[in-house]
């Protein structure tokens, strides 16, 4: 090994010199020869001993290593420098964030290959890695031989990306690019400098142009922000999920710089997500995991969800009208443009959950939901939930359960809303805090929120995340959408909800929900950490229907120990942040989730972090803000358009609903003691 390494090292040195001096293409070629040397690896592990050993091993393999002992630091590093790494190696058990959650985030936001590792070799854990989308799982102690081959994951991923591209229909382009990319793949990873510069160049230019650039080493990576995802979902819904082809989607979206291949690969993921929602009843957590990762990107919508929740809350009387307004203006205002669209999505979701409390999973609830534009809480929770329950949100546990049930049934829809709802609902169930619709109970809300988020499990979305599973369960989230206002909320945040919006697909709003799901995981992780969540999970089951309600409560309960939940909520945070401040929300809690954050969320984030649960999930922001804002009316935009008739929600909904069933069982990934999926009819 030593001799070969030495040779490689030497060749690298010479090539790097050549690189600097000369032609990019030549340098690329030289770098390609050195591949996999120069592979940029980010290794995350809270164990300093392991971290040091891994770093040394990776350096010995001639990789460029960056080490990190905190998941959140790693995430921010990755976010700041999206194209700065080729592969990530992460430990499973970390104190600040669950490794799987990090995995999902990375998958959604950066789409990098992630290798999990742990001293834990139990089948369950390894399976979790698989379902969450890890490309490999290493058992500690890690030997250098195992690390030598990690470059294969980078190459494989690139090949698959190109394949997606081809499938999207632009065969000619694909072929050309494929050839280029294949050559480039090798060189790009090795030729870091060259690639980076070319990538930078690419990022600046139109993506299509990059393809023409023969020296471009790598396909530009598109980040599916919440807004983008919402637009995508809207387009897909408009076309109908069956008829949605990348070309048409691209045309509908009309986003400059977006290529058909980007849409194609995203569509593929989205389809997988939907499939998971509808068909993967056997695999607990499958759905969640896979879906969740894309969710992250769509966290933006979460914020919109919060809007919904807020509205719901407001509707139920939990939220003081003023606070709602405040919330809405502050938090929900984010996704200005999107409100219209997102809302419908959310509505659908909510409707979903509400409408068919009994239906539980995907039984045509979707239909209901879809048509139900006017989701108000009451509306959403037709049978199982008594109107007053909704209104009162007092029911905490019961209502939550009901709501959750409904939500669950809605499956896909709920999932989106659920994260928000769930979170909201949770608080209710939990501590009965909501009972008094007292915003003052906020602290309690928060905790449940975290849970609800989980339990709501946005059925579809949540599954993947550890924590998220719960979310999915909470079909009841949908109730939240019911209140059109609620729906609007997520919509607005479309941009924010990276992952969540995914499942919803139907409307941007929904998408926001999905991010929630991802969010939920964060929440879950938070929750897990907090230990205190356990109780909420139990409630969760009952909550299904209550979710929406809870949601409101949650919002109201912004004050509740956000620490746990806030993280998830953070997603929406941008608004929330401001709101929080106004509300005196214990920002400390909000932190984790703010994905969408924009700057605001970041600030909140840090403040929120104090609770310690902050999941760096910015993506979840929508949620966070919702939760945090509790009182604030999340959206002014409200819902009316939440569920446009033309929305092709039905299909999604049914898929989602079905997913719900599946998701529920998946819950067990949560590891919550109290969590009993029983309630969720699968």
């Amino acid at each position: 090994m030593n001799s070969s390494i030495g040779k490689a090292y030497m060749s690298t040195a010479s090539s790097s010199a050549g690189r600097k001096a000369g032609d990019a293409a030549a340098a690329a070629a030289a770098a390609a020869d050195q591949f996999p040397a120069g592979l940029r690896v980010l290794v995350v592990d809270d164990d300093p001993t392991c971290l040091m050993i891994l770093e040394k091993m990776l350096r010995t393999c001639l990789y460029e290593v960056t080490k990190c002992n905190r998941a959140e630091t790693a995430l921010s590093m990755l976010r700041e420098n999206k194209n700065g790494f080729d592969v990530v190696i992460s430990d499973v058990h970390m104190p600040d964030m669950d490794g799987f959650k990090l995995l999902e985030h990375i998958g959604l936001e950066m789409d990098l290959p992630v290798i999990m590792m742990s001293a834990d070799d139990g089948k369950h854990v390894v399976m979790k890695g698989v379902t969450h989308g890890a490309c490999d799982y290493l058992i500690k102690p890690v030997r250098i031989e195992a690390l030598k081959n990690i470059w294969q994951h980078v190459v494989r991923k690139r090949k698959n990306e190109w394949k997606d591209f081809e499938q999207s229909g632009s065969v000619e382009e694909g072929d050309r690019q494929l050839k280029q990319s294949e050559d480039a793949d090798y060189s790009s990873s090795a030729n870091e400098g060259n690639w980076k510069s070319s990538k930078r160049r690419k990022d600046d230019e139109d993506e299509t142009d990059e393809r023409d650039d023969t020296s471009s080493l790598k396909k530009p990576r598109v980040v599916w922000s919440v807004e983008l995802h919402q637009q995508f979902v809207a387009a897909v819904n408009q076309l109908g999920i069956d008829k949605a082809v990348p070309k048409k989607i691209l045309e509908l979206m009309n986003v400059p710089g977006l290529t058909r291949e980007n849409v194609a690969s995203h569509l593929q993921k989205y389809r997988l997500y939907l499939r998971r929602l509808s068909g993967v009843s056997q695999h607990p957590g499958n759905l969640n995991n896979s879906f969740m990762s894309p969710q992250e990107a769509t966290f933006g919508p979460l914020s919109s969800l919060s809007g919904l929740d807020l509205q719901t809350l407001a509707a139920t009387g939990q939220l003081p009208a003023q606070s709602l307004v405040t919330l809405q203006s502050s938090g929900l205002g984010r996704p200005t443009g999107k409100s219209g669209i997102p809302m419908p999505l959310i509505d659908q979701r909510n409707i979903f959950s509400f409408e068919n409390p009994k239906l539980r999973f995907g039984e045509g609830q979707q239909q209901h939901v879809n048509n139900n534009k006017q989701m108000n809480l009451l509306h959403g929770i037709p049978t199982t939930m008594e109107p007053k329950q909704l209104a009162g949100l007092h029911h905490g546990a019961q209502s939550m359960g009901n709501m959750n049930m409904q939500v669950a049934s809605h499956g896909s829809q709920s999932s989106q809303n659920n994260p928000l709802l769930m979170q909201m609902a949770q608080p209710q169930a939990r501590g009965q805090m909501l009972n008094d619709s007292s915003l003052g109970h906020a602290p309690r809300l928060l905790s449940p929120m975290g849970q609800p988020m989980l339990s709501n499990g946005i059925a579809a979305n949540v599954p993947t995340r550890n924590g998220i599973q719960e979310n999915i369960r909470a079909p009841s989230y949908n109730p939240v959408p019911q209140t059109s206002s609620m729906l609007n909320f997520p919509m607005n945040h479309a941009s924010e909800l990276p992952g969540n919006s995914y499942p919803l697909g139907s409307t941007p709003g929904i998408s926001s929900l999905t991010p929630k799901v991802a969010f939920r995981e964060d929440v879950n992780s938070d929750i897990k950490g907090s230990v205190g969540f356990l109780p909420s999970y139990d409630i969760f089951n009952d909550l299904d229907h209550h979710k929406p309600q809870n949601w409101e409560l949650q919002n109201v309960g912004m004050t509740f120990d956000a620490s746990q939940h806030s993280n998830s909520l953070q997603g929406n945070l941008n608004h929330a942040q401001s709101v929080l401040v106004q509300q005196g929300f214990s920002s400390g809690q909000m932190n984790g989730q703010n994905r969408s954050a924009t700057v605001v969320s970041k600030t909140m984030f840090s403040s929120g972090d104090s609770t310690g649960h902050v999941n760096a999930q910015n993506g979840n922001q929508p949620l966070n803000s919702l939760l945090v804002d509790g009182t604030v009316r999340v959206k002014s935009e409200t819902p009316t358009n939440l569920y446009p008739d033309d929305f092709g929600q039905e299909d999604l909904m049914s898929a989602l609903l079905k997913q719900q069933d599946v998701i529920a069982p998946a819950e067990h990934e949560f590891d919550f003691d109290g969590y009993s999926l029983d309630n969720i009819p699968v």
Partner: protein
Amino acid sequence: MEVGQMQRRLVDYTKTLFMEGFLDAQFLQLQQLQDENNPDFVVEVVSLFFDDSEKLLNNLSMALDQPNVDFKKVDAHVHQLKGSSSSIGAQRVKNACIAFRNFCEEQNIDATLRCLQQVKHEYYLVKNKLETLLRLEQQIVAAGGSIPMIDMGF
């Protein structure tokens, strides 16, 4: 003592440690990672391991000393210790951790307390052995010799 003698002593000592199960093949991996660019790699990693482990053992003692023991937390700590000890190659410590985790699952206070004692015992033993070994290496290097690579036939 001349260098050759010291080297032989080191080799024999290291081999005994392997035979007795204190160290396993992972430790060899560490030694192989050490090179001219990182001549103190093993020392650094082992020191890191000592610091980290002692913190973990303290946390474990505190956690088990609570009126209501939080076994999840205890398990998390033990898991961590298991990970780092296996990465270093401290085999007996790792095995003690595995047993410890089993009892944590059962939430057996008495058994886990005993396990903690066992882990601590193994830890201090291996710490002692490693310190001796590293000291021997230092002496060899100080005397101008090089550290012999152990061929354990792994």
